[in-house]
């Protein structure tokens, strides 16, 4: 089944160049303050949930109004993409703060015992978003390889064992999402290119995570040396690879020329780490460049990573540039046979 046929089979009728975000969206200042108050014990879980729901509704409405085709819940209930799942899995605890870049830190988890999925982690939030949206909502789960690579391991004998255990348990979360009705599921694997020698078992872990589940799978990876694991990357059991390559120094036209890309490709066309707002012209140029990599039926458009580090205003402006540019390119494509 082709990727478009699979989408239709799943009841998803998407336009050319489907637009979406990678997942996280900025927390409005009042939600940030509420999370801080909750952490200090000054706000109840129920009150925090109510504020998170309110912010999620805001972003669902905002994404719709901006004109994105596939929405996300914005991950406003998550702090960090790894720590959030680690906190919910048995056998993992949150360690101290570790810096990732600039002034960004995260609680790097520690695997202290056998990892075990206890109950649905994100399903409730996905259902909430789905119930309040007229457009498809993508479910997003951090993948087992990245969970392993971005955690300390004090339990398993080696990295592979930890990755396999995480895959087996996280599959239960993905299955629960699909069972709840999710048809678009994104697995975040930004660590994928970290150690090329480990790619074979990272691929097997993703297979264990998704095999036999009836959904269109997107694998998101970012800021890595993907050229070092291409074309082996094509062995990933996924329908769509989301790569932050639009500003890459690598000549991907040449790379794909040697080994044709065989999946749908999501290209990141917004730099999420700069305050600067891209113009629609800049974004259109990036999309047009990406159209030289894959055919129009196989290209999806997104930012290069989650937008949570930007302000609400910056993220909104950036996404408006993305949808405006996509509309412009769609018009040009429609005029071209």
């Amino acid at each position, binding site marked *: 089944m082709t990727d478009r046929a699979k989408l239709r089979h799943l009841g998803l009728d998407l336009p050319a160049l489907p637009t979406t975000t990678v997942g996280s969206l900025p927390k409005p200042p009042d939600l940030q303050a509420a999370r801080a108050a909750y952490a200090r014990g000054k706000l109840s879980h129920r009150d925090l949930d109510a504020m998170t729901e309110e912010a999620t509704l805001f972003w669902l409405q905002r994404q719709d109004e901006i004109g994105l085709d596939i929405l996300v819940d914005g991950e406003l209930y998550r702090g960090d993409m790894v720590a959030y799942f680690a906190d919910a899995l048995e056998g993992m605890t949150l360690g101290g703060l570790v*810096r990732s870049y600039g*002034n960004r*830190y995260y609680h790097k988890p520690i695997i202290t015992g056998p990892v075990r999925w206890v109950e649905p982690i994100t399903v409730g939030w996905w259902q909430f978003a789905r119930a309040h949206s007229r457009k498809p909502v993508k479910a997003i789960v951090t993948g087992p390889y990245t969970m392993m690579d971005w955690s*300390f391991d004090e339990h398993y004998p080696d990295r592979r064992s930890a990755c396999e255990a995480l895959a087996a348990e996280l599959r239960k979360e993905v299955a629960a999402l699909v069972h709840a009705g999710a048809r678009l599921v994104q697995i975040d694997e930004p660590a994928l290119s*970290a150690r090329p020698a480990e790619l074979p078992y990272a691929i097997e872990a993703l297979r264990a995570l998704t095999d036999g589940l009836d959904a269109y799978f997107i694998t998101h990876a970012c800021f890595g040396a993907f050229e070092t694991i291409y074309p082996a990357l094509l062995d990933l059991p996924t329908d769509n690879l989301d790569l932050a390559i639009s500003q890459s120094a690598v000549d991907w036209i040449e790379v794909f020329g040697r080994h044709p890309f065989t999946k749908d490709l999501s290209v990141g066309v917004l*730099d999420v*780490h700069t305050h600067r707002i891209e113009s629609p012209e800049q974004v259109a140029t990036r999309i047009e460049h990406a159209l030289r990599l894959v055919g129009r039926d196989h290209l999806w458009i997104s930012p290069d990573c989650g937008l949570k580090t930007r302000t609400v205003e910056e993220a909104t402006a950036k996404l408006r540039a993305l949808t405006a540019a996509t509309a412009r390119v769609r018009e040009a494509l429609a005029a071209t046979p």
Partner: protein
Amino acid sequence: MQTLLANHSSYPRIGDTKHAQRLRRAYADRERGHITQSEFEQVESSVLAEILHEQAAVQLDWATDGQISWADPVSHLVERLDGVRLNGLLRFLDTNTYFRQPVIEAKLRRHRPLVTREYQRACAACPVPIKPVLTGPYTLARLSLIATTAYRSPPLLAADLSMILADEVRDLVAAGARMIQIDEPLILHHAEDIRLLRELLEPLQNATGEAAQLAVATYFGDAEPLYAQLNSLPADILALDCSESPRLLDAVAQTGSSKVLALGLINGRSTRLENPDDIARTLERLLHRYVHDSVYLQPSCGLEHLPRDRARAKLALLPDIRRATT
């Protein structure tokens, strides 16, 4: 045989208490314009004093400034040069840390010291000798993008960076540095360039003269295949990440070393705390054919990959290992 204890390079700049996170808040406040640069530097200096104190408290022979003002191992040095623009983020080797890729747009010029003022600031706040650390010319060139005809190839860019860093080394020596570490992790992934690295390090070693020792550090990869060639580099000290491969330990044990070694036997990327007695036995095995009268014991890499409390605990293992070594 003298066992000397050293920090490797970076050190966590924040911890988990509110007070230990003041530098993080100061960064954010500076970005929002809520505090001045001078106020930010006051906070940074107090954090520097704190981490220097932590290193002195565990009786290190060589401390570092923890690279607490570095955004990343690449851009901190290169952005201070004329001819450079910083591009988007890229992952730094196999870590969950990132660097802004330098785009070289014109011939590089160093018109001010890169880290010498940071070195002097650390020296003024610490009774223990400070080892300044520079990312080396090979790694910097490998991680940069050339967008100018001033450099026709990465080796030519690396050669210019070598001369620039040699000027920095001269300034550091003039400021009192007696040991300078050059980090070259990328060479472990490009063994074919070992001859180029040798050429690139010569100006740096010449710049140290008789006044200081030059240490070359590799990490985040298996150094065993290159171990013999690393021993031929123009440097006084070879710093090795011993956490990546048991084969490297065998190579050191079986062949000794033509250079003084700085052995990274404490894993700087794992929260598991090593048993000092086990490490002491490993150290004894490694020194079986070692002919020098001193050896350095240090973490395998910068400790900023760990939470602050665990980084401190790792450093605290070093004197225990020294005591347990016969």
